[in-house]
């Protein structure tokens, strides 16, 4: 498969909402390409018509009774870690 270019690295970083310092782009490009080259060995594995594995225990539709269970979580404790709170609500920069 084609190697990641500098632009590809910058695009990936942007998609993941990460900013990479100009001086580090080359290093990331080299490292990411080495990792991808290693995992690309899977392209040669013969898999016939096997299906993908999403999970390993075969559980389906885990459900429980639809009722509130009080685990003692306190809104005040949950809000303590929020960077900006106004009137018990999380404040963010304007979106629109």
């Amino acid at each position: 498969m084609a190697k990641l270019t500098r632009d590809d690295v910058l695009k990936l970083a942007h998609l993941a909402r990460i900013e990479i310092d100009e001086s580090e782009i080359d290093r990331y490009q080299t490292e990411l390409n080495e990792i991808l080259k290693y995992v690309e060995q899977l392209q040669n594995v013969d898999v016939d018509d096997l299906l993908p594995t999403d999970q390993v225990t075969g559980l389906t539709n885990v459900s429980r009774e639809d009722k509130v269970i009080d685990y003692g979580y306190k809104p005040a404790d949950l809000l303590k870690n929020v960077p900006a709170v106004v009137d018990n609500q999380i404040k963010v920069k304007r979106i629109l």
Partner: protein
Amino acid sequence: MSQWPDLLTIADNVRTGKTTATELVSRSLTLIADNKSYQAIISTLDEAAKKRAKNIDENVAKGKHDGRLLGVPFIAKDNFLVFGGETTAASNILKGFIAPYQSTAINRLEAEGAICVAKANLDAFAHGASTENSDFMVTKNPYDKTRVPGGSSGGSAVAVALDLVPFALGTDTGGSIRQPASFCGIVGYKPTYGLVSRSGVIAMASSTDVIGPLARTVEDTALVLDVIAGIDQLDSTMIERDTKKYTEISGNLKNARIGLVEEYMGQGVDPGVRDIINKTVSKLKTHGAEIKSVSLPSLTYALAVYYIICPAEVSSNLLRYDGQRFGYSYPSATSLQESYIKSRSIGFGREAKRRIMIGTHVLSSGYYDAYYKKAQIVRTKLINEFNETFKDVDYLLGPVAPTTAFKIGQNTDEPLKMYLSDVMTAAANLAGIPAISVPAGNSQDLPVGVQLMAPQKNDRQLLDLALGTERIMK
């Protein structure tokens, strides 16, 4: 001579007044302070631990002294949410985070009287195999301070190896309990996927993450597992536990059918490690185990599968760190977009960023089928080979890692070389099967663990074999 007797004896000593929980907690805190130079501990929970100990002692005085781990101090890897201090996952982005609730595993240990005294260092978000990816500090190996303790549960392994506490908790996504246990000469247990609740533990790769104990002996390991295993409403990925206690083990080796994994004994394995594994095999044979070579050809691809699936899940799990609801938030952002980007860029370390970008790439349209889906399919192939092999043998055996503890700095410039440290452990995570590292000897004064694996849900049987192995390798 160890500072600590076995866990049941410690609890009995508290119950019968031979010692107090307060004494045990302060002994542990003193040991932690005396061993700071190993940089195994991120924070101590002095106040909360002493308060809990005082409560236990008061109850014992009143005759209320239930609890299989009464007064036993322990350390949790710092990706467990615990009351009484910060939970950081050794990452700058979570520095200062105060858990609003506590992980189920910690709650269950506390319910049996155990006391969490400190939080251990790890590779940030558990991304690594040496603890060098911690955003805070590098933990040192107790056998040689110029070497790594392994990772990502390096701090937990060092805490137990140094006897700071009688046991610790870790997490294992691709080998993060077993490999540091091997490097530090202790027991490290990765349970069957879904056996222990992950509620309140910071997620890394959700399809392989498990929680498990690190301890000095198999029996202590089994007791801790017995306390933390079992269905929890807060984790919907769980399976039923064994109806018997995990401590109901006798160390039986006679007629145990064990497969020596050929793929793990090849060229890449350090000769010193291979020698110890071969010695373990001959001793097991002497004690009546039936051992034969087995081959699972897809093991060759397990690490490649893991390093697609793991970063894919990591990139998704780390999306929640966006600077809005918790964790580091860039203070001078002028837009939401800038707040996201700056908070994440400043908050995440290099390894997290690498994994996020690899994960984003392998999941992106156009590459999804070639990378992610192909990895999931090869994962199926690997699982099928495990299932086939387990028709013929009850257990698998091999090294935990191809080498002993490597030098600090040796692999930090080449992420791929660091990844190769998981080459013998990641397969158990991909298949969801239980696996354990048991100390088997030293090579050039550095510990080597033997890895034992069993089919899913055969945790008790695996601990039984591990106990037998431990006895003959001592």
